[in-house]
Each structure stands twice: as C-alpha cells, then as structure tokens.
C-alpha cells in the first residue's frame, strides 16, 4: 500500500486511489445487481425496491441525516478496525470495545452531571476512549506476551464484554424499570443537534475530525510510522529498533479507544443512556467497512456512509416496499465478499483471453505475472523481475 509521498508523486497516488475507487464501486454495484437478481427471483418489484432503497438513504434531508446517523458507529468502529489493520492486527473486537466505551461514557456522564456541557461531554468521551482502549489492550497484550491470536481473543472478549456490561449495569447502574439500562444522561451531556429536526448530531463532526486525526497519526507521526512499519514488515521493524511487542499492545489500545468512542457517541448522541445488549453488531460490520475502505482512514468515511445508506435505505425498503431486511443483510454480505476479492473483477476482464496452448507460446495473463511476482518475492535470484509487483 503506497503511502502518498508528498508533492511530486501525487498524480500517481491519485490514479491509484481513483482506480481503487472504481474497483470498489464496481464491487458494490455487482453486489447490488446480485441483490436485484435475488429480489426478482423472489418476485419483488426490483425498481420499487431500489427506489425505496435510494429514497430512504438519500431521498430527503431526513434520509441523509438518517444515513449518517446509521453510519456513525460504523465510522468510528471502522476507523478502529482500519487502524489495527494498518498495524497488521485483525481487531474483530470492536464490538466489545464499543460496549466498554459506551458503559464508561454513560456512567461518567451521570457521575459528573454538575459539570458544564463541553467539559462534561469531553470527559465522558475520554472515559469511553479509555475503557475501549483498555478492552483493546487486553488482546494486544495477550498477543505480545503469549502469541494468542487476536482474532480469537477479540471474538471471545466481545461475548465477555456484552455479558460483563450487562452484569455491571444490573448490579450497579440500573435505572428503575423493566429494562437493564442506566438512567438517561442529563440533557446538557448530549451531543447537540447539527440539523434541527433530525437525529444528526455533532458526532458527525467529531467523526470527521477523528478520521483526519487518525490519518495524520498514521502518516505524519513517528508513532504512526512505527505502526505501519510493524504492519507491513515486522522484520524491518525489529531491525529499525521498533519495540514490536509494545507497538502491538499500543496499536490495539488505540484501536480499542477509537472503537470505544463509537460507543460514546451512541450514548451521547443516539441512545442517551447505556442499554444492555444495544448493539446489533456494529463491531462486525465495522470489519467490512474497514475492508471496503482498504484500511485507509479517509476511505472509512465513504465506506461507513455506504453501509449506513444500505441500512437506512433497507429500512425504507422494508417499510414501504415490504421487502425483508434480511435481504439487505445478504446484500451486505455480498458487498463484503466482492470487495474482498481483488481477483474477481480481473477474472471477469480475463474472460476473452484464449486458453493457453500447451507447451509453447503462453499468453501472458494477469495470473502468470502474479505467479512471477510471487516467485520473485519468495526470493529467487531474478532480482529484476521484482519490478513487477503483481497485477
């Protein structure tokens, strides 16, 4: 993954970004077309369905706001996953970190209720980031100390986080009533509305600022340099004197903190309290968001909006075209699959290429080139062939 090298190489970098955008757009379009096929197969009116999808996602100010509200937890959690990706770590635990952050935020907001609005919100978010960070630090430390794979430990910690927060709420923070939830946070602790009459709050602004901050962290700071280095080439990182184990822990902690903020904004901007079991799996969708974004911080923004739109539009589709939301779930699965498979679109492009004739005069295909690249990367003496870095 090329870091944009300042100034002179910009055009090439942009071409690459545009190319990737095209690829992603194509994958999404392909997934929606496959979804259309499913709809048609089930006898739904595809046009009506997709009109409602569009209308619900972008058809009005309220729709756009709704899309963005849906996108918010995915933006934060997706950013968290993307950050860990860049550090070479698979953080499937954003879900758990988000719960930790949400509970900490709700408790802090209640505890410091007499504080004025701005410091109160800041403190509550800080608490969320800290709690999420701690919850992320655990798998990081386990990986650094024992080598336990973070995919498994983070998945397990998700379950633990959900159960633990539920237990804590019940035991210590429960508001009276039939639901295991904390009391509503005071009005001045809530994130202010951005557009009156919609549910859109300042969370969006915070999200964009955070994207910029993470991008800056990764590209412009020594710490970010370490993270990317460990992620892309641990061998070189060791050599350069980067304390890899410590970076693993910190990368997971930062990732967890960002995921914790996802929980914070849910509490401060949407739910106004912590509710046991509130997340429908934001943390898992976030993995897909980060992937669609190709782990670039700025890519997370449109990717989160895409998934937010699928959700918001999916609701309208369900309400007014009577199409089950599960179909949208399936389409989301398709989006993830198609975006994840770089070879898919190449396979499509390659179709017209004649089958290679036996023995001699092989047609040059993307695949043979990839093979060459793979071989040279494995290190034969053919140094010059390295120039070809895969299709």
């Amino acid at each position, binding site marked *: 993954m090329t870091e944009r090298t300042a100034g002179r190489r910009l055009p090439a970098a942009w071409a690459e970004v545009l190319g990737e955008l095209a690829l992603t*757009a194509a994958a999404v379009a392909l997934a929606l077309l496959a979804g259309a096929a499913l709809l048609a197969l089930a006898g739904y009116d595809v046009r009506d369905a997709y009109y409602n999808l569009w209308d619900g996602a972008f058809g009005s100010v309220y729709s756009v706001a709704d899309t963005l509200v849906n996108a918010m937890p995915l933006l934060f959690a997706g950013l968290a996953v993307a950050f860990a990706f860049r550090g070479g770590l698979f953080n499937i635990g954003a879900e758990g970190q988000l719960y930790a952050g949400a509970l900490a935020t709700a408790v802090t907001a209640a505890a410091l209720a007499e504080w004025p609005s701005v410091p109160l919100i800041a403190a509550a978010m800080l608490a969320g980031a800290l709690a999420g960070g701690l919850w992320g630090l655990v798998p990081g430390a386990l990986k650094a100390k024992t080598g336990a794979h973070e995919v498994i430990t983070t998945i397990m910690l998700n379950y633990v986080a959900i159960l633990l927060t539920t237990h804590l709420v019940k035991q210590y923070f429960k508001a009276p*009533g*039939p639901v295991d939830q904390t009391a509503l946070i005071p009005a001045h602790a809530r994130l202010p509305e951005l557009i009156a009459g919609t549910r859109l709050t300042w969370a969006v602004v915070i999200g964009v600022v955070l994207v910029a901050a993470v991008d800056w962290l990764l590209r412009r700071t020594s710490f970010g340099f370490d993270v990317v280095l460990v992620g892309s080439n641990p061998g070189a990182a060791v050599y350069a004197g980067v304390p890899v184990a410590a970076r693993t822990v910190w990368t997971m902690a930062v990732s967890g903190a960002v995921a914790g903020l996802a929980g914070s904004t849910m509490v401060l901007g949407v739910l106004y309290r912590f*509710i046991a079991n509130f997340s429908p799996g934001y943390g898992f969708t976030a993995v897909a968001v980060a992937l669609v974004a*190709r782990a670039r911080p700025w890519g997370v923004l449109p990717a989160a909006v895409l998934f937010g739109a699928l959700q918001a539009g999916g609701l309208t589709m369900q309400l007014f075209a009577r199409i089950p939301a599960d179909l949208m779930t399936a389409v989301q699965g398709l989006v993830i699959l198609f975006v994840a498979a770089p070879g898919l679109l190449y396979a499509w492009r390659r179709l017209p290429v004649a089958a290679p004739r036996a023995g001699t005069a092989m047609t040059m295909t993307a695949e043979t080139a990839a093979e060459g690249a793979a071989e040279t990367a494995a290190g034969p003496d053919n140094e010059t062939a390295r120039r070809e870095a895969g299709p």
Partner: protein
Amino acid sequence: MSMFRTLRSTPAVAPAALVLVVALAALLAFAPAAQAQTGRMAIVFATGGLGHQSFNDSAYAGVQAAQARFGVQFDWAEPASVAEYEALLTRFAQRGNYDLIISIGFDQADAVTAVAARFPSQRFAIVDAVAEGDNVASYVYREAERGFLLGAVAGLMTMRASDPKINEANVIGVVGGMDIPLINANIAGYIAGAKYVNPAADVRYSYVGAWDDPARGKELALAQIDQGVDIIWGAAGRSGLGVLQAAQEAGVYAIGADDDQGHLAPGHVLTNGMKYVNNTVLHAVQSVINGEFTPGVIALGVAEGALGFSDSLVPVDIRAAVGQLVTRLIAGELVPPDTIEEVDAWLEANR
C-alpha cells in the same frame, strides 16, 4: 498489508466498473411514484421480529384481527436493534398519514418518548412499557400475575403422581431467556404461585442468555428435568421452543409462553401463559376508531383479560382451584411480587 497490495494498477478495471455502475443506474432510472396512503395504522415490532411464535406474533394476530374487524390498513417494521426504533418511528411519523403508530416491546420507551415529542399531533401507543407524552397511550402488563397463575397450576399439578408425566419429586422449573426484570417478574410470580398452593414445592430457574438459541434452551430444560423437574415453563422467546422439545422427549409437561404453543409438542404442553397482546393491539386500534384514544398509562392484567393461562391439558379440578385465585387476583386481594428477592417475604405475608 499484502491483502491490499494486490489491488494496485487498476485502470484496466475501470471500464468494467463503469458498465456495472451504469447498469445499476438504469435499474433506478424509472422510479415508481409514491402512492398516497389513507386511513392507516403503523406498528413497530420488538427486536427479533416476527416468528418467535410468541410476543410479536401475538401482536401481529392483533393487527390481523383489526384489519378484519375495522378494515384498517397496516404498515409494519421489524427492527433489528434498539437503535433503529427511533428512525422507524420517525419515518412513520413523517409520513403524517397514520392514525396511530403502535410500538411493541418494553425497550421502545425512549424512542417513543423522543418521537412523540417531535410530532405532537401524531398519536402513539406503546405496549409493554411506559413512554411520556400527551399523545402517547402506554399499555403495561402486571407480568407477575401471569407467572402466579402458571406457578399455581404447576404447583398443584406436580403433586399429582398418578399422572404418568409427573414424578414423585415436588419440583417444577422455568427457563428464562435472559436475566432481565421482565422475565424475573414472571419467574417471581411463578415461584410465589407454586409455593402459595404447595408450600413444599421446589422451583428451579435458569437463563439461556439469548432469545434465539433453542438448542441451549433445550439443554437447560433437560438439566432441570434431571433434577426432578416434571413441569417446566419456557419463558425465553425462540429459545423457549427448545424447552418444549425437551419436555416432549423427556416425557414431562411443558408450559408455553405468550401464545398457545400446544401444537409444537402435542400432549406435553400443560398450559400456556397467555399474554393477549393481540387484544391490547385491538383495544388500541378500537380506541382510535371510536375516538376514545386516551393518553397515559393503562395497566393491564388478569382483570382486564390481558393475561391468563390456557386450559389445554390442565385437569378440571386444578382449573377450578386456580380459577379461585383468578377471582382473588381480579378482586385485588392478591398482588404477586415483581422480583425474585421479594418472594419469600410475600409468602410470609400471604400465608
């Protein structure tokens, strides 16, 4: 980041991408006009959607009854998470053409309160929770009453060792979906009811931890049956269906939840804890149709015919005995406890 590195040098794909995007755009080109809608109700179900064979389905039955009786039209939504409630309610409210928007489920209170405040001229009803607002009718149930009746039935039945499905042990059980207040009110009533009619009865209870894992529901039930439980209530959404199957396989009695679930384990469902959400929905719709919509809290229980138990396989004499209790509940002489902690004190007081 090898997984992303393979994606370089993409321009060759751009044409393919373009074709796909254009194809999709073509699909959207001719959008249908939105139809005008009149005389409608909207309903937002609880998370988990339809098909629990219980709560939401009962509500849906109410919708169907209302359609049949009053000819009203319904739009509905099955949200996947708590966070969606508000968006859905807002969507409905924005359309401005619904006579009533009904929310089902205890966790919609916040959303209804918020949306009701934003759309003061829209009428809302919420079932199973209290929401604030001058335009909201809140229907709540006295859950413990239902548990109390079921406990009484089970407590009497488990002493009937002549029945082949009943053993010597004086133990009954209940499997809850989650350890939450709503379920615990049922369990508290259940224990109180059982011990009220059968002081020596032993009541076991445990929780699945999920509404959608019938396999574990079944194992929890079997674990209780191992301990001598011969009547077991599954108050656990879809997980509760596993409880019915366990009872069927082990040859003991099960108690169904929320709706009549007798068909799932024929010959084994002793009774069902009935929560007539359908009646509640019907009542709410009717109040609007008749122009009698009244905001505020409406508590429903056995007296209002919103809770009860089905006769099913309950022997006549037990039916009669529990019928006595129903009368006393209606009369307000018995007010079962809402939490498990209060049960012992309540029994002491109601000796």
